[in-house]
Structure formats: structure tokens, C-alpha cells
């Protein structure tokens, strides 16, 4: 009997140690514990430990910057799933999309989520910009972060645009034909820019590969690095807070 009780006790304390190694500070029942939790937790440390109540009123930020970032994460996760089934070649791309929609488990749902989250992100980033403008939050010392934001808006649009081509249906190639045609009007550089984007004179296999590589690696990487800088500056410049 004693042996069993001892073993149970031992197991219990091992379990406590396991839980304690992950959640080092218990429930945040006092400010001190809460502050220590936030300071020593990787996920939480991008947040300031202390904030003014007025800064975190949802009516001030409307959560728009945070939601933009969250949508970026949703797009990364759903995008990974799509990548398992999608081959960026004009012989496979369209059939892969149909398989995703009709054959792959949850393929249709994940594809829809990726699509609608992309549209939603264009909207939330745009509205975030409007919030920052209307609250005058770009003023000194946040001029630089406004500039970083502007580039992030462009990256968001380019991510959406490069993704548009990938299903390789009539909507994709003609939308991208129209879009890339705009580039050719630039003086001197125009036609070269268009050639660089398409990897040829018309939308084809080379274009699909280029758009794919930019869509899944190039642009997300640049966007992520810029977001890191953006969040760093929000912290270092101090959040603008209430009016």
C-alpha cells in the first residue's frame, strides 16, 4: 500500500513539475505575477508589460493592426496545406485546384478560407491605415513606421495579386494579363519590367513559376521581416494612445 501511495505521490509531483516548466508563474492573480508572466513568455513579450487603459480600448485601434497580422498567420497556415497538393505548372495547376475543391479532405474549405482571408486582409490593412491617419498617429516620432506600413500595404496587394494567378483558370490569367499590362506603360523600363514579371512576352509556364515563388517565399519573407520591424517600432516609438 505504502509503495503505491509513494509512487502516486511521485507521479503527481512529476506532473506538477511538467506543468510548472511550461507555465512558470501560475494564474495571473496579482499584477506582479501577470507582469512576470508577460516578461518571460516568448509569445507575450512582443506586448508591452504595462499599458494605459486608454491605449487598449478597442474603439481606438479597432484591433485592425492585430487582425491584419492574425490574417497573415491564417494565410500562412492554410497556404501550407494548399502547397501539399498544388504543383505550379500549367499542366497540373488547374487540375490540382479542382482536386482540392472536390477530392482532398477539407481542401475546399481550406481553399475558401485562404481566398477570403486574403480579401479580408487587404480590407483590414487598408482600414488600419485609415485608423492611423484619422488618429494622427503617423506624426513625430512615428513617421518611419508609417513608411514601413505603406510598404506593407504594397506587399499585401502584391501577395494577393501573385496568388490570383495560381488557380490557372480564365479569371487568373486574364486578370494578371490586364494587371501586368499596366507595367508596360512606364517609360523605357516598362517593357523590361513586364518581361521580368512574366518571364516572357505572355502569361505562361514561366510566369506561373515566378508568381508562385514570389507568392509562397519571396513576398511573405519580406512582409514578415517588415512586420517584425513594424512591431518593434510600435514598441520603441511608444504606442500613440488616446487622443
Amino acid at each position, binding site marked *: 500500500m505504502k509503495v503505491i*501511495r509513494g509512487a502516486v*505521490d511521485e507521479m*503527481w509531483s512529476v506532473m506538477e513539475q511538467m506543468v510548472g516548466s511550461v507555465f512558470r508563474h*501560475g494564474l495571473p*492573480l*496579482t*499584477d506582479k*505575477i*501577470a507582469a512576470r*508572466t508577460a516578461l518571460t513568455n516568448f509569445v*507575450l513579450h512582443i*506586448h508591452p508589460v*504595462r*499599458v*494605459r*487603459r486608454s491605449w*487598449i*480600448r478597442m474603439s481606438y485601434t479597432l484591433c485592425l493592426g*492585430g*487582425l491584419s497580422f*492574425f*490574417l497573415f498567420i491564417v494565410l500562412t497556415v492554410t497556404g501550407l496545406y494548399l502547397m501539399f497538393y498544388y504543383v505550379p505548372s*500549367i499542366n497540373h495547376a*488547374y487540375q490540382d485546384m*479542382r482536386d482540392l*475543391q472536390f477530392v482532398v479532405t477539407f481542401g475546399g*474549405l481550406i*481553399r*475558401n*478560407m485562404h481566398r*477570403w*482571408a486574403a480579401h479580408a486582409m487587404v480590407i483590414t490593412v487598408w482600414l488600419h491605415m485609415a485608423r492611423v*491617419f484619422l488618429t*494622427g*498617429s*503617423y*506624426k*513625430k516620432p*512615428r513617421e518611419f513606421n*508609417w*513608411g514601413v506600413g*505603406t510598404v506593407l500595404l504594397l506587399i499585401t496587394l502584391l501577395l*494577393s*495579386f501573385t496568388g490570383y494567378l495560381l488557380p*490557372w*483558370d*480564365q479569371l487568373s*490569367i*486574364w*486578370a494578371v494579363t*490586364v*494587371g501586368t499590362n*499596366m507595367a508596360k*506603360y*512606364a*517609360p523605357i523600363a516598362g517593357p523590361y519590367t513586364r518581361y521580368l514579371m512574366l518571364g516572357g512576352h*505572355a502569361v*505562361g509556364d514561366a510566369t506561373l513559376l515566378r508568381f508562385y515563388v514570389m507568392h509562397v517565399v519571396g513576398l511573405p519573407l519580406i512582409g514578415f521581416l517588415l512586420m517584425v520591424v513594424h512591431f518593434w517600432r510600435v514598441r520603441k516609438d511608444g504606442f500613440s494612445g*488616446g*487622443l
Partner: protein
Amino acid sequence: MATEARDRIAARDRVEARRRQAEAPSTVRDDSDDEMIVSFPEFIFKEFIAAVAMTVFLVLVSIFLQAPLLGQANPGVTPNPSKAPWYFLGLQELLSRFPPLMAGVAFPTFVIVLMILVPFLDRNPSRRPSERKVAIILFGLYMVIVVALVIIGTFFRGHEFIWNWGWVLGSPQTCGGAAC
């Protein structure tokens, strides 16, 4: 559970509760907007709720709304009208009205550069909306124009990108004469 273990937990809880009481802030919270509060868990909880709400919204929309997938791409058959994605329809609309060099290159470049320069052009130090009427009116105008151009491009441009009251004629899209 063994009684010894239970006793030990109860004892630990008592110690914890006593320590908590000792650490509790002596002042009563004033609840004013200016009060400094610890961001965890209140702030993080708000973000969490927003993320959950967005996820639920996305899943619901994705269950009921199918992402478009038309016929396989065919370089030989051009749909008419051919439209850019909606967020570029403002540009396409400008291209249909102004010379391409101006609408397709000069204008977007100008807008991007202007946007980056906004913090340096706006010399007014105030952040209060009532003291920034000009800036807010100009920005509002910019927003209205962009939204209007996108709406026109999406709903009121039909065959050959010619003006079309969507609800009168429908939106006939043809591919080289035949319907798509």
C-alpha cells in the same frame, strides 16, 4: 487521489493565497483611462477574442461561399471584359479614362510617394480631429474616390469595359463572341 497528495495541495494553496494577499496592490484601482494596467491578461484576452471571432467568421463564410474557379486558362480565348482583381480596378478604371503613362505609371507612383511623405508634409502638430479639418477632409476625399472607382470597376463596367448599369443589362461576359 492519495490523501497525502491532497493535503499537500491544500497546504500549498493556503500558502499561495497568503502570498497573494501580501502582494495585492494597496491602492484601489481608479478605472480611469489614464491608469497604467498590466497588459496581461486583459489586453491579451481582448486580442484572443478578436482572433477567435475572425476565425469563426472566416470558417462560416468559407462554408457558404465558394471561391471562384472558372474554366481552365486558355490564352487563345479572351474574356470580354477582362478585369484586374478588385483592388486594382481603380487603376484599370483610370487607365480607361486617361493616357496610360499618366494613369498606369505616373499616378500610382505619385500616390505611393505622397503617402510615404504624409508625415513630413503635414506640419500640424495636433492629433485632435477638430484641429485637423483639412487633413481629414483630404484623406476622406481620397478614400471616397478609391472606393468609388473600385465599385464602378466591379459593378458598372461591362462588355469592352464600357459603362453598363449592371441591373439593367446584367453583366454579359463573352469570350470571343460566345458566352463564357
